[in-house]
C-alpha cells in the first residue's frame, strides 16, 4: 500500500452502513466470551497434538533454561546470584512476549478463509493467541515461584506487585500482537523480518544478563526497551524482594496501554479491508 492509499484511506469518506450488517459479534461481552472460549479450545487442542501434550508447556521453558544455563552459566560464566532463577525469570517473561508476537504476526492473514465465511472481529485471532501464551507463562511462573521458595530467597511483600507487572506484559503482548497482525496481511514479508527483529530484541532485553552490568552509556538505550524494563521488574519483586521501580512501571504500563490502543485502532481500520484485498 502506497502512502497515498494510506492517507486516502483515513481521509476519504467511504460507503456507509456496511458495518451495521451482522453487527452483533462486535458487542464487547460476546467478543471476550468467544475469545476466552477459543483460548481454552486452543489449549485443549494443542495438548492433544503431541504425546506429552500438556507436559510440553513445562518442559519447553526448562529446556531453554538448560541451553542458556550451559552457554551463559558454564561457558561465559555470568556472575549472578541465583543464576538459574535469574535466567528462568527472564526466559518465561521473554518467551511469552516473543512467542505470542511471532504467532500473532500471521494470525489474521492465515484466518482469511474464515473471515470470508463468518462475520468475525479480526482481533479475535491475536487476542486468543496472547491468552494462550499467557496461560503457558503462568505455568512457568508457578515453577519459578516454587523454585524460588525452595532454593532461592523465598518471598517478600513485594510479590504482591506481581499482578500489576503481569497485567503490563499482557497489555504489551496484546498491543504488539495486534500491531504486527495488522501489518502482515498487506506485507506478508514482515513476518520474515520479525524473526530477526525478535532475535535482536532478545539480546537487548537482558534475558541472561543484568541491565546494570552494561557500560553506563548503553543503559539509557536499553531503558527504552519495554521488554528489558519488564524483565527487570519481575526480578526485582520475585528475587530481590524490592518494590518495582516507579519509572520502570510507568514505562511498561504506558507502552503497554499505548501499544494496545494503537493496535486496536490499526486492526479495526484495516480489518475492514482485508477481506477485500486480492
Amino acid at each position, binding site marked *: *500500500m*502506497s502512502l*497515498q*492509499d494510506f492517507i486516502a484511506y483515513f481521509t476519504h469518506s*467511504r*460507503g*456507509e*452502513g*456496511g*458495518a*451495521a*450488517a*451482522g*453487527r*452483533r*459479534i462486535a458487542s464487547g461481552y*460476546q467478543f471476550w*466470551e*468467544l475469545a476466552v*472460549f*477459543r483460548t481454552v*479450545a*486452543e489449549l*485443549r*487442542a*494443542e495438548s*492433544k*497434538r503431541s504425546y506429552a501434550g500438556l507436559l510440553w508447556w513445562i518442559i519447553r521453558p526448562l529446556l531453554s533454561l538448560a541451553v542458556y544455563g550451559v552457554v551463559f552459566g558454564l561457558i561465559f560464566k555470568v556472575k549472578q546470584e541465583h543464576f538459574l532463577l535469574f535466567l528462568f525469570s527472564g526466559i518465561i517473561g521473554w518467551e511469552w512476549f516473543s512467542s505470542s508476537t511471532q504467532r500473532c504476526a500471521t494470525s489474521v492473514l492465515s484466518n482469511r478463509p*474464515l*473471515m*470470508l*465465511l*463468518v*462475520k*468475525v472481529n479480526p482481533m479475535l485471532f491475536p487476542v486468543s493467541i496472547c491468552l494462550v501464551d499467557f496461560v503457558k507463562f503462568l505455568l512457568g511462573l508457578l515453577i519459578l515461584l516454587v523454585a524460588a521458595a525452595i532454593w532461592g530467597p523465598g518471598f517478600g511483600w513485594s510479590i504482591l506487585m506481581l499482578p500489576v507487572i503481569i497485567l503490563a506484559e499482557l497489555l504489551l503482548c496484546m498491543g504488539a500482537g495486534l500491531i504486527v497482525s495488522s501489518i502482515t496481511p*498487506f*506485507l506478508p514479508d514482515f513476518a520474515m523480518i520479525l524473526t530477526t527483529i525478535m532475535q535482536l530484541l532478545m539480546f537487548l532485553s537482558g534475558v541472561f544478563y543484568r541491565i546494570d552490568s552494561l557500560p553506563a552509556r548503553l543503559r539509557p538505550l536499553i531503558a527504552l526497551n519495554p521488554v528489558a524494563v519488564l524483565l527487570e521488574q519481575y526480578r526485582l519483586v520475585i528475587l530481590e524482594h524490592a518494590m518495582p521501580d516507579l519509572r520502570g512501571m510507568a514505562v511498561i504500563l504506558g507502552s503497554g496501554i499505548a501499544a494496545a490502543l494503537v493496535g486496536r485502532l490499526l486492526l479495526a481500520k484495516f480489518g*475492514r*479491508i482485508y*477481506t*477485500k*484485498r*486480492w
Partner: protein
Amino acid sequence: MNENLYELNAVGVCYRHYSLWRKSKHNIWALRDLSFSIRRGETVGIIGRNGAGKTTILRLLAGILECDSGRLSCSAKVVTMLSIGAGFDNYLTGRENIGLNGRLLGMHGAQIRTLENSIVEMSGLGGAVDMPVRTYSTGMRARLGFSIAYHADPEVLLLDENLGVGDAVFQAESSRLIREKLASRQQTAVIVSHSIPLIREMCSRVIWLESGTMKKIGDAEEVTREYLDHVRPR
C-alpha cells in the same frame, strides 16, 4: 409485516490490490450501483453466471464486506451465511466444536448449552460427537456443521448453492428442514443458486446479476424465464 430489513442504495463493492510502492490501479468493482430492499420474511433468489458477483452480494449482506460506495442499511441483528463447519478444529471433539462454531455463528453461550443435545441428535453422530473431528468422515463433518448452522437460527439466512449436505438420506433430510424454514413467514433468506427450479420453488423475488450490476429484479417466475432465454444458446 412489511418492514424492510435491508435497504441498498447505489451500493458498490471494490476489491483492491495493494502495492507497497505505487498507487495501485488494479481495482475491481465486483458490484456496482445496486439498489434494492429486502423485506422481513421474504426469500430472495440471486441468479447470474459465474463471476457475476453472487457470492460478493452474500458477503456484503452478511457484513463480511463493507460497501465502498453508496449506502447500505440493515436492521437485522444476526445474519449468517450457512457456512458448514467454519472454523472447525480437527483436534477438538465434535462437542467442543459445537461451542466454537456456534459462537462464531453468533450464538450465545447459554443458547448453545440449551441447544447442544438437539444439535447432536440432528447430526446423528451419536457417541462420535465426543471423538476428535479429525476422525470424522466428510459426511459426518458436514452433518455436524449443518446441525449447528440450523440451530443458530439467524434473523437472515444466507445460502450459497446447496441446501442439503451429507449422504443421500441426510441430504434429503437437511434440504427438507431448510425448505420448511424458508417457507415460514418469519424467516428472511437470500439464496444464491444455479438451480432455476429451486429458485422458482423457494423465492418470491429474484435478482439477476450480470458482471456486478443488477440486470433485473422482480417476480421469480418472470426473471428466471428471461434469464434462461438469455443464457440458452439459440
